[in-house]
């Protein structure tokens, strides 16, 4: 069933080419249809999920290096799979009328992203990791705007470098295991005896940090986002940035527990830096899309900080669990909120061909629904209670501060400052775009169409649901988070 979920979109993409010359309605219909079915299957999997590794498939792929097609879901991957299916559906609805190639590329990307979160084999993980880069390169280069080729090339070069460094780290893990294997389950069960664990962790950490991205490896992100089409940005920020943090929790922590604990403070520092730097740079932006892009650096920083804090000592297990749960919740929450925000900026660009904050003002008057949703998204992003961001960030701060020692307290306190800055910047942005005197381009901004509203409202609605009744999500995440913490504490 899991393999069906993974490969259904790419089969649908091939199906698009079975028609001789499909009209936009056929393309859009097939795309949305495939995404709906895929989401329904993921929801069914969620309902029937019974803990542990579910829906496992383990086939031999390259036996001579002991790499297999090994997929399965657990509490870490299930929420992200659901997020992926939902966000891709939102993009399918939002992008009605796009060409066949665009739809096929997104469907293929959906397969890649689902496959990555389901992979239980390092090589399989890497295959999907690399393909996500190639797919997003073509999205930006083919359908972006502005200086799209340059931004796409920078994105490709930067993240491809990260992926190769990651591959070297994986080879380090492979050679450290006895017998050599790429199987994640086996590697997590008995951590490989790597000759230079610090170096391997560095390789894996840098590879994933580029993808996440954390300061100082984030410089590819703003141009990629600014020049990507709205749906591309939503996927890039909503799904693909998660691959980095997910990889840390799935691969680095369980497989290199000693090294993780030894260098946890480095990860905490990097996390805090990302939180503060991302927030401060976002504060200075004049371009709404760049602003949201930098808040992604800030938000992913919280998740990295939490994972680092989970490696500080072994005494405060409860706090560590809380931190890891918070990190996973943050990934889901950020995916929902940032996906919605990027689609909303896409609406702005669609109408006015600009993201400049100063060109707008008083938009709330002519586009009330747009204004309302942008406000909800901004408040969710800055962590207002009642929305999903609060649940995630509250757990992260509590977990970090409680993780033991003065270091955790200082890191947590510094990270709280990040919330303050994001609150300031979002309120400022809302004021400049939505309120005040109309700007030169405000007149062009008409309200959301029904299609756009159908794409965006459910994302924010779900953020609200998670914010008010988070148990259904936390019940899935918590056992997996506890497992990760126990693996790190070995």
């Amino acid at each position, binding site marked *: 069933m899991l393999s069906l979920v993974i490969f259904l979109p790419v089969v649908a993409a091939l199906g698009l080419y079975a028609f001789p010359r499909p009209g936009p309605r056929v393309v859009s219909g097939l795309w949305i249809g495939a995404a709906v079915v895929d989401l329904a299957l993921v929801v069914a999997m969620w309902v029937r999920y019974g803990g542990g590794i579910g829906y496992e498939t383990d086939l*031999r*792929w*390259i*036996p*001579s*290096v002991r*790499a297999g097609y090994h997929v399965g879901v657990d509490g870490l991957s299930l929420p992200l799979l659901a997020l992926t299916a939902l966000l891709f559906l939102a993009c399918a609805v939002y992008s009605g009328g796009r060409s066949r190639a665009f739809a096929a590329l997104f469907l293929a990307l959906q397969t890649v992203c689902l496959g990555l979160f389901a992979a239980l084999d390092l*090589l399989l993980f*890497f*295959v999907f990791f*690399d*393909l996500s880069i*190639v797919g997003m390169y073509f999205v930006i*280069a*083919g359908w972006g705007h502005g200086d799209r*080729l340059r931004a796409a*090339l920078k994105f*490709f*070069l930067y993240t*491809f*470098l990260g992926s*190769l*460094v990651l*591959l*070297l780290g994986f*080879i*380090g893990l*492979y*050679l450290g295991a006895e017998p050599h294997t790429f199987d994640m389950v086996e590697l997590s069960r008995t951590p490989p005896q790597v000759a230079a664990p610090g170096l391997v962790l560095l390789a894996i950490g840098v590879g994933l940090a580029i993808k996440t991205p954390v300061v100082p490896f984030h410089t590819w992100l703003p141009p990629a986002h600014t020049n990507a089409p709205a749906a591309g940005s939503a996927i890039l920020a909503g799904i693909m940035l998660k691959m980095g943090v997910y990889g840390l929790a799935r691969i680095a922590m369980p497989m290199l527990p000693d090294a993780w604990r030894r260098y946890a403070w480095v990860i905490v520092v990097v996390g805090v830096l990302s939180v503060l730097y991302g927030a401060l740079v976002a504060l200075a932006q004049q371009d709404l899309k760049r602003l949201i892009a930098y808040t992604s650096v800030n938000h992913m920083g919280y998740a990295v900080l939490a994972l680092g804090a989970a490696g500080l000592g072994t005494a405060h297990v409860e706090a560590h669990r809380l931190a890891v749960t918070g990190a996973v919740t943050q990934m889901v929450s950020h995916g929902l909120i940032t996906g919605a925000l990027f689609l909303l900026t896409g609406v702005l660009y669609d109408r006015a061909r600009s993201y400049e904050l100063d060109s707008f003002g008083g938009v709330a008057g002519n586009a009330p629904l747009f204004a309302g949703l942008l406000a909800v998204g901004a408040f969710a992003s800055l962590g207002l209670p009642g929305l999903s961001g609060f649940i995630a960030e509250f757990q992260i701060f509590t977990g970090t501060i409680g993780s033991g020692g003065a270091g955790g307290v200082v890191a947590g306190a510094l990270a709280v400052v990040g919330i303050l800055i994001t609150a300031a910047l979002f309120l400022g942005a809302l004021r400049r775009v939505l309120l005040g005197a109309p700007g030169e381009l405000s007149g062009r901004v008409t309200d959301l169409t029904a299609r756009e509203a159908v794409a965006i409202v459910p994302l924010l609605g779900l953020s609200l649901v998670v914010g008010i009744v988070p148990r259904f999500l936390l019940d899935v995440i918590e056992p997996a988070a506890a497992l990760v913490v126990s693996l790190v504490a070995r």
Partner: protein
Amino acid sequence: MMMNENPADLLPELCVLGGAVLGLLCGMFLPRARQWIVGVLCAAALVAGLVFAGLAARRADMTVFESFVLDPVTHVTRGVVLAATLFVVVLAMRPLRGDRRETEFYVLVLLAALGAVVMGMTSDLLVLVAGYLVASIPAYALAGFAKDAAGTEAALKYYLMGAFFGIFMLAGIALLYGAGRATSYEALGAGPGGVVAVGVVGLLAGLFFKAGVVPAHFWVPDVAQGASRVVAAFVTTVPKVGAFAALYRVAVGFGGGFDLSLLLALVAAATMTLGNLAAFGQDNVRRLLGYSTISQAGYLLVPVAVAGRSGMAEPAVLYYLAAYAITNVGAFAVVVAAGRDEVDGYRGFARRSPLVAVALVICLLGLIGTPPTAVFVGKLLMFGAAVDGGYGWLAVVAAVNSVASVFYYLRWVVPMFARGDEWAGALDRRAAVLAVIAAVGSVVVGVGSGVVLAL
């Protein structure tokens, strides 16, 4: 290991030789309009050779005539060389139809392929020289086949370089023979250290030339650009296969006093870096592919350098060779199909023929090493062998080079998808089909690498 002197064990090679001789004889009597029959004959000989090679691969390892080893290295060399040659022969049939020297082309290609196989399967230095010459001399003629200025220049450069490094090779072998009193690889490294060192370096010079490895790489871009497109596909693929198989055998057999492994590692690093740096500025796609094959040769040399130090070295060399061959001929098939040499000549090509454009994208991404293509698995094994063999730094150099190579491969991809440009020109349909087959093959070999590696 079993020894015998049964000529039937060399059936694949005899098929190729027979095809060449028979083709030459037939060509003398056939009218020009019907010389294509020779092409079909040669293709049939290659298919027969492939079948026999496949059958031979099922038997136990042995040595025949005391100088030809039948082991996995030989089986892969045979398979890859014969298959790549078959690809080139089919690719050439259309552009060469009715050419004055159509027959000669097929015969020369077959003979050069025979030389490459001999180089790869021998375990004797003298047979290696014979293979070197058989592989080289037809290739010189092929480079200048069109008799135009660019081709003549390419042929002359190719010949002069080949003769120059061939002399080194002969001198080196003479020294090794004198020092070790035998020409078998098993005796390689016996004798006084200094003489052996000089001898091995001379021997390597010749192999480096065939493999297109720094510092014997200068001919590669010139021949890739100057010779005809089909010949370029051939000489950047087939001789390299034989050369790397021979290099691997030498590296395994060498038992001398100095660190051959380190030397090869340094050469590998220099080769991949120089090839990449030189490829950056190229606007001619054939020259670009020429430099790209140099950088690929650098990656290929990495597992050769750790031969004997890591169990992954042999599968890495053999798998990478097969992956490289299929991907490289695929990229050249697109050049043949489009008939354009300039990067700008590909503007809007994706609109004219989306399938061929996608095939080229797959081949170029394959050369970068993107999964799930074949070269990705080759690179994975290469990285693994390097780290396992204690050359972590070399793996890092190779990784950085792979990233750098993205830049110039994408320079070719981007114009194809440029909007608003019409690509006007004739498409060679046969070459287009072959390009798609190669691209599909590269993905199939990559995804099915488990099956391939098990063979």
